[in-house]
């Protein structure tokens, strides 16, 4: 039998619904693991043991009385520590917000609470979702459970590490330039950046309002689908939130991929940026699996990846600076060095250049929409290489490890899945992008590939 902590949400939910697994037993099991493993993993800023056990007891009583709320009822979920939690500190992993205690939950936290999820802790993040794996903050940076000397990536670093290590069954991340998909890739899990605006951002510490996305991070695409069912609620108080009817994401996973048109943005990883050969081999293996399942595969062309990166960087840095300007002027010493430097750089971008970037963005949105008339999904690696040593910060070295920025600029949904392992035993990754509000198709393709490739059977040795 699978250990409780390595059950997927779908598996645990079925047992809980059948009254064969107690949410209390499940939470106690995870708390024991957090105490044993997290002193080395650093995935948590705050462990919410007492609150989680209280919620688990309530969930157990409700379920035994016939009040099962759905697949997330009694399921332990972690929250990146930029999600506001009523009465519980939400720090952004920063000394600046160390004493910040919100008076209300983020909208998405409310959604999960109403679905019966149990919150087990507040998870590490790059400072304010931008700073990098830093050693000069009040809490240490999360580490990668596949190799503790490696970076889990970020900014949803604790979310990726905790899910991969079996310290929670799902987690919320946020993605402005790849902050869900990067740690999903390097930690070997599934991470969905939904269509821009489908999930409310209200109550989440902002980084860049026109690029920020909330989203789920889980062991499988199926679990991300279960979380999406609870999260896609319209929030009229987030002006970017789309009032779009949501499908049953989990029900949409079934069926074959016959006739699916897969577009490979090959120039991203063969011409625009050099990519590790094992990563490319895993991608080719995934393409073969897609063909075997009845999909057609062909190469497509977009603007060079650098155009997306340049556009996204100018927009995100400007918007992030606008939010942080007063604090950067008044109390810069309360930021870590990476966060302070990256945020301050936004002060140097002119208004005209920001507008130019937004105009360029409109062109890129149109370009992807045109290509997606001939392809139902677009694929390319999430990461250019497996996880790097922690401390080899991309901004310090100039190395950009990910192909993520394109779908933040265009807002299309994008999922990262694990599509293999390197010779060193580190996860490799594939990214699947879809048309706006076709997140269900993206998850269906991810789910089919995870089953075909068999990558979900292997867990980090550290966590076994």
């Amino acid at each position, binding site marked *: 039998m699978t250990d409780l902590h390595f059950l997927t949400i779908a598996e645990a939910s079925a047992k809980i619904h059948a009254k064969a697994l107690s949410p209390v037993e499940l939470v106690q099991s995870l708390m024991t693991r957090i105490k044993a493993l997290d002193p080395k993993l650093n995935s948590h800023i705050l462990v919410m043991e007492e609150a989680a056990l209280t919620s688990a007891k309530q969930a157990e009583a409700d379920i035994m009385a016939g009040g099962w709320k759905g697949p997330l009822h009694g399921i332990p979920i972690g929250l990146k520590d930029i999600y506001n939690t009523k009465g519980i500190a939400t720090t952004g992993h920063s000394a600046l917000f160390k004493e910040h205690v919100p008076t209300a939950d983020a909208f998405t936290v409310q959604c999960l609470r109403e679905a019966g999820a149990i919150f087990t802790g507040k998870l590490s993040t790059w400072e304010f979702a931008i700073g990098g794996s830093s050693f000069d903050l009040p809490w240490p940076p999360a580490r990668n459970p596949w190799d503790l000397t490696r970076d889990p990536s970020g900014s949803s670093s604790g979310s990726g590490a905790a899910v991969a290590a079996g310290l929670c069954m799902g987690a919320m991340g946020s993605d402005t330039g790849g902050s869900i998909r990067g740690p999903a890739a390097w930690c070997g899990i599934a991470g969905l950046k939904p269509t821009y605006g489908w999930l409310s951002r209200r109550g989440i510490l902002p980084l860049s309002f*026109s690029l920020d996305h909330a989203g789920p991070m889980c062991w499988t695409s199926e679990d991300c689908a279960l979380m999406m069912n609870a999260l896609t609620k319209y929030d009229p108080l987030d002006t970017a939130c789309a009032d779009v009817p949501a499908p049953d994401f989990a029900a949409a996973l079934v069926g074959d991929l016959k006739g699916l048109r897969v577009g490979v943005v090959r120039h991203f990883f063969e011409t625009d940026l050099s990519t590790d050969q094992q990563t490319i081999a895993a991608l080719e293996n995934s393409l073969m699996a897609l063909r075997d399942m009845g999909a057609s595969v062909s190469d497509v062309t977009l603007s060079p990846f*650098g*155009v997306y*990166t*340049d*556009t996204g*960087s*100018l927009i995100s*840095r400007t918007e992030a600076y606008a939010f942080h300007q007063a604090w*950067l*002027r008044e109390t*810069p*010493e309360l930021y870590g*060095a990476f966060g*302070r*430097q*990256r945020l*301050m*750089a*936004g*002060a*140097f*971008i*002119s208004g005209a*250049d920001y507008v*130019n*970037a*937004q*105009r*360029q963005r*409109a*062109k890129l949105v149109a370009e992807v929409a045109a290509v997606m008339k001939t392809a139902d999904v677009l694929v390319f690696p999430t990461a250019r290489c497996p996880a790097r040593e922690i401390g080899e910060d991309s*901004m*310090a070295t*100039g190395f950009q490890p990910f192909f993520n920025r394109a779908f933040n600029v265009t807002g299309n949904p994008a999922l990262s899945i694990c599509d293999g392992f390197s010779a060193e035993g580190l996860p490799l990754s594939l990214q699947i992008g879809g048309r706006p509000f076709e997140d269900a198709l993206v998850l269906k393709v991810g789910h089919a590939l995870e089953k075909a490739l068999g990558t979900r059977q292997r867990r980090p040795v550290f966590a076994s």
Partner: protein
Amino acid sequence: MDETTFEARLAQTGLTPAKEDLPALQALVADLDRAADSIRAPRPYSEEPLSAFRLKPA
């Protein structure tokens, strides 16, 4: 590319970074300057309608 010196531009921002932040900050700004320069191409506005401001009927 902005020809004003980094120090002069920094002074205009009102920011007071520590001396040890300056090399990294200057490198980050140089990268953003290059990015801005790369998309500063002349583009006919009539072919690029863009508005972030949209009203709905009451």
